């Protein structure tokens, strides 16, 4: 990972670019070929059995629909993001603070941890309508749904991460006379970062789906609304497009988090 440690690879030579290309082909080639093969197969199946578009649209039709509805989709996507981002931010702040608090107090942990686990066993489709009933059709209940489906992995991984600090490093700081807060600031939060990022990566993959679900239940715009309308109009091709956009959005957010991780947890993988 470190650029200081691996100068030979980044040194440009005549062979290096070709080698890099070949390495990349070896990594991305097989999955890309598989996806292309599957798409061709799908197209052929639809064409061969003359499957109606409302039942299973072929990939070519989905692409055409995507291009046609780009302006509408952009609006809905932005609307979904205005639910996803605040919801996820809320989950991050609450989840992290709760994780630190539960780590600090065993009593609190014993009292709240079972509640947290239970909260994750209640189906969100049952809670979401109640939230809409309780808080109205504004942004807040939808943000809350996203926060509810994403905060759990952040709490759990924060608690685990804080416990994971190296014992010798901890004892060293204690021997220096470090207080609880110094130990937290100088060692334990740093050591917890890799685990916290794992939690964030799990959470971010739920976040867009959570937002779409919330919009489906009650909203006037967003990918969830777009899907609900398309289903009612038997526009299966539009449903596929919305699914595609949802997953692309998730992948984009995941990639963003991974880049942030590499930047913030710069020492990981150095040893």
């Amino acid at each position, binding site marked *: 990972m470190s650029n*200081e440690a691996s100068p030979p690879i980044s040194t440009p030579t005549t062979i290096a670019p070709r080698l890099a290309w070949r390495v990349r082909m070896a990594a991305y080639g097989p999955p890309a070929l598989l996806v292309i093969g599957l798409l061709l197969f799908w197209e052929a199946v639809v064409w061969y059995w003359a499957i109606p578009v409302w039942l299973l649209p072929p990939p070519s039709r989905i692409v055409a629909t995507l291009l046609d509805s780009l302006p509408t989709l952009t609006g809905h996507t932005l609307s979904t993001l205005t639910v996803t981002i605040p919801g996820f931010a809320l989950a991050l702040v609450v989840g992290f603070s709760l994780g630190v608090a539960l780590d600090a107090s065993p009593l609190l942990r014993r009292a709240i941890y079972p509640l947290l686990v239970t909260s994750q066993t209640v189906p969100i489709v049952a809670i979401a309508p109640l939230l809409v009933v309780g808080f109205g059709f504004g942004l807040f209940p939808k943000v809350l749904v996203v926060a509810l489906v994403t905060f759990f992995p952040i709490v759990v991984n924060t608690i685990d991460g804080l416990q994971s600090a190296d014992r010798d490093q901890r004892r*060293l700081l204690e021997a*220096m006379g470090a207080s609880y807060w110094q130990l937290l600031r100088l060692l334990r939060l740093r050591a917890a970062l890799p685990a916290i990022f794992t939690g964030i990566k799990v959470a971010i993959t739920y976040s867009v789906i959570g937002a779409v679900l919330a919009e489906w239940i009650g909203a006037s715009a967003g990918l969830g609304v777009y899907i609900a309308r398309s289903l009612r109009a038997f526009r299966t091709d539009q449903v596929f497009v919305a699914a595609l956009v949802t997953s692309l959005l998730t992948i984009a957010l995941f990639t963003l988090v991974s880049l942030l991780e590499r930047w913030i947890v710069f020492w990981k993988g150095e040893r």
Partner: protein
Amino acid sequence: MATLELRSISKTFSTATGSVPVLDRLNMRIANGEFVAVIGPSGSGKTTLFNIIAGLELPDTGAVLIDEVEVTGQRGQVAYMPQRDALLPWLSVIENAVLATVVQGGDVSAARREARALLADFGLEGWGDVRPALLSGGMRQRAAFLRTVLWHRPIMLLDEPFGALDALTRAQLQQWLLGLWDRLDRTVVLVTHDIDEAIILADRIYVLTARPARIALEVPVELPRPRSYTLVTDPAFARLKRQLQQVLVDGSGQS
């Protein structure tokens, strides 16, 4: 200035499988500026003893005194170099070295300047802003030692500082420590497995028995300073080494 005294220190750990007596009424007295080595079989309780002196662990009985003042259970009184280097991987060598000053709220930029000035002496010139992952084993130990020196305590505890290194690197670092030692003016307690190391470095040696540790032998090392590695061929060295080996084997054979 800084004498360290242990009075009748005992420690028993209780575990799921029963109680493990580790230290049995240990008495030690280390004079100001003295370099004392503690040798003992593996698992005899040397690290536990250091943890008690550093205040990380409380003894069941007994007291730790520095300059005749009881400090049992107090932290931050002595500089401690743990068995593994415990360098923080996200900090540079300099930032690791000034950690004690950061924790104790001292003048960190002055400590940084001091650390930088000492880099050459510690064989780390040009490596100050590099993170520990890029250092060799010997350099990591020297960085950890620099951190211990910059802790600015008159008493230093070194727990097998060269234990994880190959023989050649270890010999080089011992030689280096001998050179540095005269200028540092600190009281040092060194834990080691290595009899040669103890004789070459120390003014006095305590040999511990196997668990529960008692003092099996206490001998002064009457070899002239400045010392060097050529000492190993000295007849006095050989005599002392044989005596220590004898006690170590007997002591661990008993229990």
